[in-house]
């Protein structure tokens, strides 16, 4: 089976996520881009697992999903709180923790 297409798709998705994280200010969008990167890597993991004919990559993908779920819980809670206090979800506004 040729996995080239899967890996290329994974790379495209990852790049989109990456650019999104770096360029967008809205915390929710940044968050979604992070999810996009995670799932891009999941896709690559599953594809490689298929190529190697074992379950290692799939198990790793499950782990990533679990982490992503946990991250969503915590991350959304933080974004909510920030939004409530500042009436803004811009990540550039929350820049008080610095030198």
């Amino acid at each position: 089976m040729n996995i080239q297409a899967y890996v290329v798709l994974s790379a495209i998705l990852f790049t989109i996520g990456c650019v999104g994280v770096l360029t967008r200010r809205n915390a929710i969008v940044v968050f979604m881009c992070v999810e996009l990167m995670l799932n891009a890597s999941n896709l690559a993991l599953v594809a490689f697992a298929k190529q190697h004919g074992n379950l290692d990559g799939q198990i790793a993908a499950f782990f990533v999903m679990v982490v992503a779920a946990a991250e969503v819980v915590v991350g959304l809670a933080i974004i909510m709180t920030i939004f409530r206090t500042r009436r803004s979800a811009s990540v550039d506004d929350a820049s008080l923790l610095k030198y």
Partner: protein
Amino acid sequence: MIALHGGSSIPVVDPTSADGVFGLLWLVIALPLAGAAVLLIGGKYTDKWGHLLGTLLPIGSFAISLAMFISLLGRDDHDRQIDQHLYTWFQTGHLDVGMDLLYDPLSALFLLLITGVGSLIHVYSIGYMAHDPRRRRFFGYLNLFVAAMLMLVLSENYLGLFLGWEGVGLASYLLIGFWQHKPTAAAAAKKAFVINRVGDMGLSLAIMLFFVTFGSTSFTVISAGAGDASTTTMTILGLLLLLGACGKSAQFPLQAWLLDAMEGPTPVSALIHAATMVTAGVYLIVRSNFVFELAPHAQTVVVVVAVISIFWGAWIGCAKDDIKKALAGSTMSQIGYMMLGAGLGVAGYAFAIFHLLTHGFFKANMFLGAGSVMHGMDDDVDMRHYGMVRKAMPVTYLTFAMGYLAIIGFPGFSGFWSKDKIIETALADSWLVGICALLGAGVTGFYMTRLMLMTFFTNKRWEKGVHPHESPSVMTVPLMVLAALSVLGGVFLIGDWIVDFLAPVVGTAPHEEPPIPALAVTVLAVCVVAVGVAAAWFLVGKRDVPRVAPQDVSFVTRAGREELYGNTINDTLVVNPSRHLTAALLATDKYAVDGVLTGGPVAVGLFAGFARRVQNGYVRSYALSILVGALLVAAALLAVNLA
């Protein structure tokens, strides 16, 4: 047992183990040491009776020494070296040092001198220090000194000797600076300690060289193997030992500390800086006869140092107005005589020790006498404020006079016999040295007569409100005993007893006819002394002594008052360069070392000031950093894998 090297007459130390009364040998040291421990640790709880305990213990040591001495006399000549092995001091590699005590004729005489004169001075101190609030501590230090000095003369190896050597140095430091509230006393103590360190360096180097050469520091081993070592080694050893001796015995060029050491209480000057400690250098040389006999060049240097010291000390003694400093100059000069005797080899060792003993008697006597005078004159030491003291203090005057007659060598008195013998031996060795010794005796006559006249005769020059009075009997009785010893000290020479007695230690000199008969030398010596005394009478005794030292004096007097510029020389050659070096080191530390050390943190701080700007609070820039970092890592991995 006496074994001799093939052909030469250097005796080998070969002691038998201690039995009978000699088993008590360790107690001689232990008693005063225990006294020092009790008095110094017990603190104020021993204030009431401390001085009594401190006096009784040296007397106990004296009793044991006397018993052992009598027992030693009962032994055969060849059986007079006794060793007591106490324990193994330490053992490391090839070095095995035992805590061994050696009791032989030489240490026997020293034991009697140290404990005997020491006990008398302890008794005297009870009176002299009666009004001092720290009298108990004074006795603690004195006991410490006595114990260390006994260790010095009893040890069977050079390391044990060094232990005692440093012990007396410590005690001397503590006692010179006993009145530490006086800055001059504190400085004098430090000076004595530092100058002694120079000498100690010589002695410690000698001990190391002994170990390298003979694999041991024991007298027994070294004296047995002395013949096998090269003359060069022996000469170096001799010179190093001489350096040590010069430091401890205040001989040229390490003499400068002795005069300042007179800042200590007078009993200290009598015990440590006249009778015992300063003679340790002479002991060291006589004890190391097996080195010096094989190092003729070192012996020559000893003689040269001795002759310089004789005149150096005498010169100072002639010019000083401070009674204790004049006596200190005299001490240096008289130790010069002992060194001269020791430098002359087998023929002179016994006479060096003889003069050491008689000097111990008469100089202790005179120092204590000077202390008694000071006691009556409200602690004034300037002889220009004395005069006619004999009326007020007849006992002090009479006992002091005995010491005076002994030191100038008045016929019949102890100093006459001992100094005469050294001059005789010196003349037999070399004309030049002999004549120097003879002239030295004349100068001795001059300065001692000057001291005697200025103190006890001539016009009254007392300060207002000073009423001299005789000292209490606790002080005068030791004076009387010492005066008697000063007169009778010559008995050691009857039938050449001391020469025969010391022969097992220092060997026997081959009998030679002196170039001029002994009687002629004696008459000559007495004449020279008479000239010195007469000169003092005309220059001091017949005139009125001014109360203030005249300033328009010749260079000779001025140099004498300045201690022959010994301090100036030391300052220029050693002290000031050291000061500059210290200042330079301090500056280096402050600017260079501290600069590097504090400069580092400052640079790190500056760098951190810039580096922390990275922490700007924008999440997206962090994300970019992470991305760039991840890309770099990936690139690096690829580069490594592809390479």
